């Protein structure tokens, strides 16, 4: 991280922190979460390679904060689905708290990595790598050719394994 970036973010923080927290609170209805997400927004800025020349810093901050907010809602949504699924597991097979957290992190990460891929591409990938289905079987289930299955798997694999 360059020191120029760091000082820009620091400047943004001092000048707009309470405004940003207010902006987030209006959208969340929860002061606690708003404070957390404001922090996330600045952390995201610090992780960026460079902050563009800021003519309208608040417009820029909202753009980043919207992304953070979106991830937050997505996480909540996944968490709800995950907890529902967990509630159905017979007690003796329920993962321990630590495993639950690990599985959830994996799901989040997978969700993030596969985000933006066409639904069929995702499905082909999950059927192959999570369920261990053969490529012929995937082609049958999805009603596509074997060559297409391979192309989909290739595309999703580059994302999932190498973030490329």
């Amino acid at each position, binding site marked *: 991280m360059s020191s120029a970036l760091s000082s820009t973010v620091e400047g943004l923080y001092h000048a707009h922190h309470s405004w940003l927290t207010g902006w987030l609170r209006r959208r969340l209805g929860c002061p606690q979460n708003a404070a957390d997400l404001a922090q996330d927004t600045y952390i995201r800025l610090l992780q960026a390679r460079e902050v563009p020349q800021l003519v309208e810093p608040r417009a820029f901050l909202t753009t980043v904060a919207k992304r953070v907010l979106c991830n937050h809602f997505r996480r909540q949504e996944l968490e709800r689905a995950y907890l*529902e699924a967990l509630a159905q597991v*017979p007690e003796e097979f329920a993962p321990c708290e630590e495993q639950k957290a690990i599985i959830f992190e*994996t799901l989040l990460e*997978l*969700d993030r990595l596969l985000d933006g891929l066409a*639904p069929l591409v995702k499905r082909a990938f999950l059927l192959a790598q999570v369920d261990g289905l*053969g490529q012929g079987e995937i082609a049958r289930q999805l009603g596509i050719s074997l060559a297409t299955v391979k192309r989909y798997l290739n595309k999703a694999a*580059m994302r999932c394994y*190498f973030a490329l």
Partner: protein
Amino acid sequence: MNSTFCAQVAEQAVHWLIESQDETFDAAQQQALERWLAADSEHQRAWSHIQQVNQRLRGVASPVVHATLQAPPSPARRRALKALLLVGMASAAGLGLQQHTALPGLMADYRSPVGQRRRMTLDDGSELQLNTRSAADVRFDSQQRLVRLFEGELQLQVAKDPRPLLLRSAEGVLRLEQGRFNLRQFNGFSQVSVFDGSASVGGHALLAGQQARFAGSGWQAIAPLQRNVGAWVDGMLVASQMRLADFLDELGRYRQGQLGCSEQVADLRISGSYPLDDSERILQMLEVALPVRVRRFTRYWVTVESRTS
């Protein structure tokens, strides 16, 4: 761990992953893959990175995803639903969450992951044990007791009860009397072994001390019970003059990844009792017992070959 790779290596690794999962992947291609792995340590690193990610992905599906599903009519449909649900959990965009919430409630769904065995007592006092990578449903009502094996292998000690106990595999339904039974689902048929009691299909009984294939219409290849059947319950793999290739296939059921051997050593014979919980040690013992060496490309890619080659 450093998980950055150059794009070219990543592309090649993904290419090999997908080719190796193709059903037509043959010995020549495997050799080509092995050459690729041996050519550069970066290749091995990329390959093992993929395997590690896959390990995590497989961990997601089981047991959470499986347990949420009602048993659909066929294993294939079941798998499809399971995948849908996972998509639901992993990606709500478009596909998933509606599918997930639309699924009906809890079915008893027991699953054991690769390399693990599970034992549970059912409501009627019967005892169900699942071998590695196995899945079964249990549904008891006032009329009948139904146990359904979706994949893998189970052993059932059936308790006395006025309701009949029906055991279902992909091929059909067996009726079990009080006793002890082993059922293994193969691709296209299932294998039933009777330790005590009797199992019947269409009025034809298979008796204690017998085993047979079951293909829906009736029994095939009825034979005396083999000593190695059911040894898994005690955590053992028992071989008696078993071909090495078959032995490795069996052992491979208990491990993640690829386990195979070269053609030169496939027909070597092996006997003995081996503890399943330490398959790495079994592989080490092979090198002592037979003129073979074990080559590990990664933890998940193991090939047994002739010591002289």
